[in-house]
């Protein structure tokens, strides 16, 4: 018989072991599902590997997808740290894209070094305001932020649709729902000759910035402390309400930046295909990474690579697109379940009961 016992000391490297174990387990189950569909599981997993990490082109694709994922996830994680359940990154991402596009379309002739900062500022403001609304509703009217942030996602997507179908539609697009192409000043350039743009550098700066903020500033400390609940915050005389507003604005602003980068660097215009669910995957990433900025970088790259790899598999083996989501969900579930082993350990019961 095995007995469950609480660990006295934290398990060194436990988080890594659990993560890798869960990943392996999920791939195994994924392989079994494929085998059940009559596909060659080993070949499929090889395709997945090749598609994700097999060549420079695949890695580049993964890195590109990891950028918006990282920023959204960072935003989600800051809010989650404080136990504010912002699941509206998707909508805040859309609003950021709208804010950036507004600048790009209004001032097309400004030089890049003026226009890009303007777009980033407006993306942060739009995304931030979109998250500020549910925060205010939570504080003033006790509206559950899970519901309000989720609902605002739908409103945001409809707003984006309205803009690309109507208000901002390119007259020369032959009826396709998209805005005119951005002027070169509104496009984030690539790094050298690679397919990677400078948004990556921006991510690194924001990542380190947030890490330093959480670790070395008083406000960052108060955020961390409030994560233990409103009562502890009150005990420590922390202004909890102010922090909720602040953290949600920050969270929405980050997602807004992701929307700005994706629109400017990848699409070069605003269109509906922008919305591929980064805002939702970001929640998965944040939990996988246990809300730690450095882990979020790894986890976003991993899940982005998984997306690219699954696309490759889909093309080669005619596997439904849902398989990617299944794998994503499975990894999250097994990692979360596996965290049981970080606080508890199994030991052999001595000599029966």
């Amino acid at each position, binding site marked *: 018989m095995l007995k469950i016992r609480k660990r006295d000391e934290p398990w060194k490297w436990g988080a890594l072991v659990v993560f890798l174990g869960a990943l392996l387990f999920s791939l195994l189950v994924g392989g079994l599902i494929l085998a059940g569909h009559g596909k060659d599981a080993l070949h499929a997993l090889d395709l997945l590997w090749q598609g994700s990490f097999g060549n420079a082109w695949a890695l580049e694709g993964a890195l590109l997808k990891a950028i918006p994922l990282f920023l959204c996830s960072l935003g989600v994680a800051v809010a989650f740290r404080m136990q504010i359940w912002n699941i509206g990154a998707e909508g805040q991402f859309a609003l950021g894209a709208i804010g950036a596009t507004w600048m790009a379309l209004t001032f097309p002739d400004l030089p890049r070094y003026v226009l890009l900062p303007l777009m980033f500022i407006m993306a942060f403001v739009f995304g931030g305001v979109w998250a500020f609304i549910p925060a205010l509703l939570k504080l003033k009217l006790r509206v559950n932020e899970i519901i309000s942030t989720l609902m605002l996602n739908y409103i945001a997507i409809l707003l984006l649709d309205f803009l690309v179908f109507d208000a901002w539609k390119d007259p020369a697009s032959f009826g396709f729902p998209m805005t005119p192409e951005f002027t070169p000043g509104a496009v984030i350039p690539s790094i050298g000759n690679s397919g990677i743009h400078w948004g990556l550098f921006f991510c690194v700066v924001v990542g380190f910035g947030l890490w330093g903020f959480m*670790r070395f*500033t*008083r406000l960052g*400390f108060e955020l961390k402390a409030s994560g*233990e609940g409103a009562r*502890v915050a*009150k*005990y420590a005389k922390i202004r909890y309400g102010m922090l909720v507003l602040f953290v949600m604005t920050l969270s929405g602003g980050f997602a807004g930046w992701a929307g700005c980068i994706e629109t400017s660097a990848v699409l070069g215009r605003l269109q509906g295909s922008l919305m591929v669910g980064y805002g939702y995957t970001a929640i998965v990433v944040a939990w996988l990474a246990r809300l730690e900025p450095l882990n979020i970088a790894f986890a976003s790259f991993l899940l982005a690579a998984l997306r690219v790899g699954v696309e490759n598999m889909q093309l080669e083996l005619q596997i439904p697109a849902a398989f990617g989501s299944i794998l994503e969900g499975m990894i999250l579930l097994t990692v979360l379940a596996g965290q049981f082993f970080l606080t508890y350990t199994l030991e052999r019961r001595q000599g029966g009961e």
Partner: protein
Amino acid sequence: MTELHFTRPVPVRAVPEGTRPVVSLKGITKRFGKVLANDSISLDVYPGRIKALLGENGAGKSTMMSMLAGRYKPDEGTIEIDGQSVRFTSSKDAIAAGIGMVYQNFMLVDSMTVAENVLLGQEGSLFINPAEMEKRVGELARRYSLDIDPGARIADLSMGERQLVEILKLLYRESRILIFDEPTAVLTPEETGNLFKALWNMTEQGKSIIFISHKLEEVIALADEIAILRRGRIEGELDPSLIESKAELASRMVGKEVLLEVNREPVETGRTVLEIKSLTGLGLVDVDLTVKRGEIVALVGVAGNGQKPLVEAVTGLTRPPVDTVFIMGHPWRKFFAESTWNRSMCYIPEDRLGLATLRNQNLVDNLLLTTRKGFAKGLWLDKKRAARDTRELIEKFDIRPGRIHALAWQLSGGNLQKTVLARELYRQPRFIVAEQPTQGLDVSATEEVWNRLLEARSMAGVLLVTGDLNEALQLADRIAVIYRGQILGVLDTADADTPSKIGPLMAGVID
């Protein structure tokens, strides 16, 4: 104050000749880590009688009943039902054996009717139509004269009626032994009276009832026998008709033995740090209290008599009425708007892990929790200095394990309390509110905490809220006794007859 609306129909019932107990606990012991929650407890419960289990918070009542209800397994000893030794592996086993428990928090589905809740999860209940359900439950309620409409929705019911539904659930499962954990805590006096009539009725029909409470008058009014539990042991079993006064019962419940003594030199008193003026509201009635620098004032009473609202109002967790609470000479509002991180008020709460510390953070972050303003340099926090000061405090207070990277939840109760105390004294407080500061601590940690509080008198006044009379007598200069939100008396510990006066006051007896 409303009194109890219940008089027992007949005097305390005698156990009929030759009746065998339905439940016998034999030498039950339960440990949680190093804490001995139940220490070889033996107890018999007879059919058709109400057994009251009296004890302070933390005396081990809930642990004991959880074992009987199958939620915990005893480490030693056996439980016998009808003379047969049983071993419950889950609460299902206990229910099957006829033991049912009404918890303080009701487990009912608000959107369903009384009858649906009673039949929920019962075998075959899925296919019974609503009319049939209501008929069955209605009959059951009539049999035990429980006044409730089986078709009513839970959401529309009062707390007292919801409790009747919980009782009906147990009766429907044919439980023979019904355990009530502080059942009157959520009830109005009227409802309490009704509940007691219902309980009496059930015992008349052969059920056994275990009634857990720390309300003395209820226990005396209702029980056929009283068992007193203290520090995990059965302190004694009494016949309620032989109890001379509530005071006697109170002093047996809290105990009078002196476990630990400290040397208390008087300190000259200074300015007033806390003044409460005729505070009424929040469950308190016309409370007046002052604390001066250099003295310790203890607030004692049976748990749940208004200590909590008083502490919350004083420490800023809830807002008291205007012009009732003055801290360090300032009205409440002004004090909390302007209070600084140091040389001010500090609060050592009863809930150390849930309120006073960040359970998943290290000791440096836990030091910063209330002192962060002292380490702020503009926007930044001086973490280096915080780490250095944490190290010094760990050494000074001998906090183990002596690493600054230990997380709060990894510390033992005593070390956690020392951490909180070290941090709060670091703030050089002028006024300290200490709530159950030694609850759950071993003797050496208790002594340490006591000495620190006595030392603190040189700079601060202390309001000590405690359930431990010995602690109050050892540390305090004055003891205020609270009963039903009222301070019935403030006694000077220098008077020789103070210890004997506390018990009656705690029971609400004023002579």
